[in-house]
């Protein structure tokens, strides 16, 4: 029975709070969207805004807009807005979310943006399981640029770039993004919905809300693909376009949930450890650059006043310890209070083939770290010797890893210490220590560095105590070899 007193009417569906009341960032017509009549974008926008409202995350939300008809998300959404380059929204969203984990980051992309130019970005964001929400609006065409074919264009469908209809033989088949992404292990939730009728629309709204809630709960990557009408480019009335979504698009792009790991994630999300950022004062220590951490060895006062400008070239095969030899020399030089530089040849040589480095030690600031005319050449094999022997300065030294010094390399003013260093190292128990035997000889010949500095350098660079001990014996052996050669 009707009652005598009237009830009151309260709004149950109205403009979402997460929309601006007026679109002041638009150039004109600030009271309506830029979308064509019947466009699905507006409907999807409303679902997103409603989900933001319902979850109470308006202040935390950051919308990452695409290039395409959806480019103006910042006209409408009263949230933080970042406009991304074509296809790159997942990369942009990734970084925002990583640096601001409390924010709620929504990537909004069309089918050209996401499935063509941005295919790599969406694939890898999904595969990393970024805790973001992606809303993918698929209307099977490039709309904003005037109706060119997209990866999602149906076979036989005409576009301005498939004027006779998409030919699968030359243009391939429609790309099924949800099916592709659901093969990955990381995504939490992937669903395809449509805007084809009332029932589909309400399901779409629920899916979008769920995808956003997943992020709020820290469950990981969620993507909702929305089959969406484009009446203008499809050349249909809005109602015809809506029916086409339901009657035609849906046959190619099956609706449904393709991946749902939200239950298992709900458990693990709670167990994730939260590590606080370190204190600012701790950073130098963590980076290993705190000054007190370094051994406070004073500059070694050896041979005071003596001019030192040692230019060394060290060359050999990869794996012979060429670079380490140079590094120990430079590190010891620094320890002894000298200016030093160490410059490697780098690249494929690091992994095989030849290797060489330039080392300079000087009492003065080092101008060029490139050693064009070395005072000492350490040649760990014959090819290295032949590559660099001509460059050695007159009066300089060649320390050569070989029993015999090639006669044609000998010249006046060139001092040579040729020994089978690898064999000698082998006698010490490890032929890989040949580099340190040769360094011992170099140190003895040049006499520029105190043993204490070498000890410090080895301690810093060689972590295995067994190797430190071995290297020390190798260095001593090298020193003996040079002393022996003088006596002999």
């Amino acid at each position, binding site marked *: *029975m*009707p*009652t*005598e*007193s*009237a*009830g*009151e*009417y*309260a*709004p*149950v*569906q*109205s*403009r*979402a709070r997460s*929309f601006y*009341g007026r679109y002041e960032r638009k150039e004109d*017509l600030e*009271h*309506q*969207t830029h*979308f*064509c*009549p*019947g*466009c*699905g*974008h*507006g*409907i999807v*926008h*409303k*679902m997103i*805004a409603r989900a933001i409202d319902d979850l109470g995350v308006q202040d935390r939300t950051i919308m990452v807009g695409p290039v395409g008809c959806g480019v103006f998300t910042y006209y*409408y959404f009263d949230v933080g807005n970042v406009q991304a380059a074509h296809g790159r929204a997942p990369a942009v969203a990734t970084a925002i979310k990583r640096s601001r984990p409390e924010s709620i980051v929504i990537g909004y992309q069309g089918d050209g943006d996401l499935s063509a130019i941005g295919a790599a970005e969406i694939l890898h964001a999904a595969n990393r399981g970024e805790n973001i929400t992606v809303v993918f609006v698929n209307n099977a065409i490039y709309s904003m640029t005037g109706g060119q074919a997209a990866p999602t264009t149906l076979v036989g469908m005409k576009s301005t770039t498939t004027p006779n209809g998409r030919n699968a033989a030359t243009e391939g088949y429609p790309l099924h993004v949800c099916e592709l992404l659901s093969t990955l292990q990381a995504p939490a939730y992937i669903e395809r919905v449509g805007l084809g009728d*009332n*029932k589909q*629309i*309400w*399901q779409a*709204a*629920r899916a979008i809300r769920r995808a956003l809630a997943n992020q709020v709960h820290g469950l990981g990557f969620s993507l909702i693909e929305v089959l969406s009408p484009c*009446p203008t480019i499809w050349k249909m*009335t*809005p*109602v015809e376009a*809506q029916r086409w979504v339901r009657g035609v698009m849906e046959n190619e792009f099956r609706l449904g949930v393709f991946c749902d790991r939200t239950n298992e994630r709900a458990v693990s999300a709670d167990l994730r450890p939260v590590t606080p950022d370190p204190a600012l004062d701790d950073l130098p220590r963590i980076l290993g650059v705190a000054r007190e951490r370094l051994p406070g060895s004073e500059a070694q006062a050896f041979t005071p006043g003596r001019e030192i400008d040692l230019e060394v070239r060290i060359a050999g095969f990869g794996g012979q310890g060429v670079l380490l030899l140079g590094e120990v020399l430079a590190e010891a030089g620094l320890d002894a209070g000298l200016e030093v530089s160490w410059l490697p040849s780098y690249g494929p040589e690091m992994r095989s083939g030849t290797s060489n480095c330039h080392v300079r030690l000087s009492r003065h600031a080092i101008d060029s770290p490139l050693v064009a005319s070395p005072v000492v050449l350490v040649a760990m094999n014959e090819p290295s010797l032949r590559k660099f022997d001509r460059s050695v300065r007159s009066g300089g030294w060649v320390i050569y890893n070989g029993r015999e010094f090639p006669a044609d390399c000998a010249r006046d003013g060139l001092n040579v210490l040729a020994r089978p260093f690898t064999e000698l190292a082998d006698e010490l128990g490890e032929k890989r220590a040949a580099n340190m035997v040769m360094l011992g000889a170099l140190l003895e010949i040049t006499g520029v560095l105190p043993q204490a500095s070498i000890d410090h350098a080895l301690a810093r660079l060689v972590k295995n105590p067994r190797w430190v001990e071995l290297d020390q014996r190798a260095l001593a052996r090298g020193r003996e070899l040079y002393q022996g050669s003088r006596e002999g």
Partner: protein
Amino acid sequence: MTEADKPGQKQDRGRLCIDGEECKGCGLCIEACPPRVIAMSEPLNHYGYRTAIYAGAGCTGCGVCFMACPEPGAITVYRLVNAPGPGARSAQVAVEEASACAGS
């Protein structure tokens, strides 16, 4: 005031308000409306669109037209609340009911 608001008559469960300047006349709400109480206007609006108009009675407040409409604020749907008697419900309950109904 519509007929439905007059005291002593049965009130519609819902009511509809369409902003004729925001509406672009796409007609999706007309297609979507279950009780068929939305029509297209004859006169054009300020921007040259024919727009959706509410017939003035028969709205159930289901909200389906709102969801079908691409414009954020072109349609506002109201529901009868706090009416004495068995039909009384809160606005929140009303919208949940509407969602469940249209999506089922």
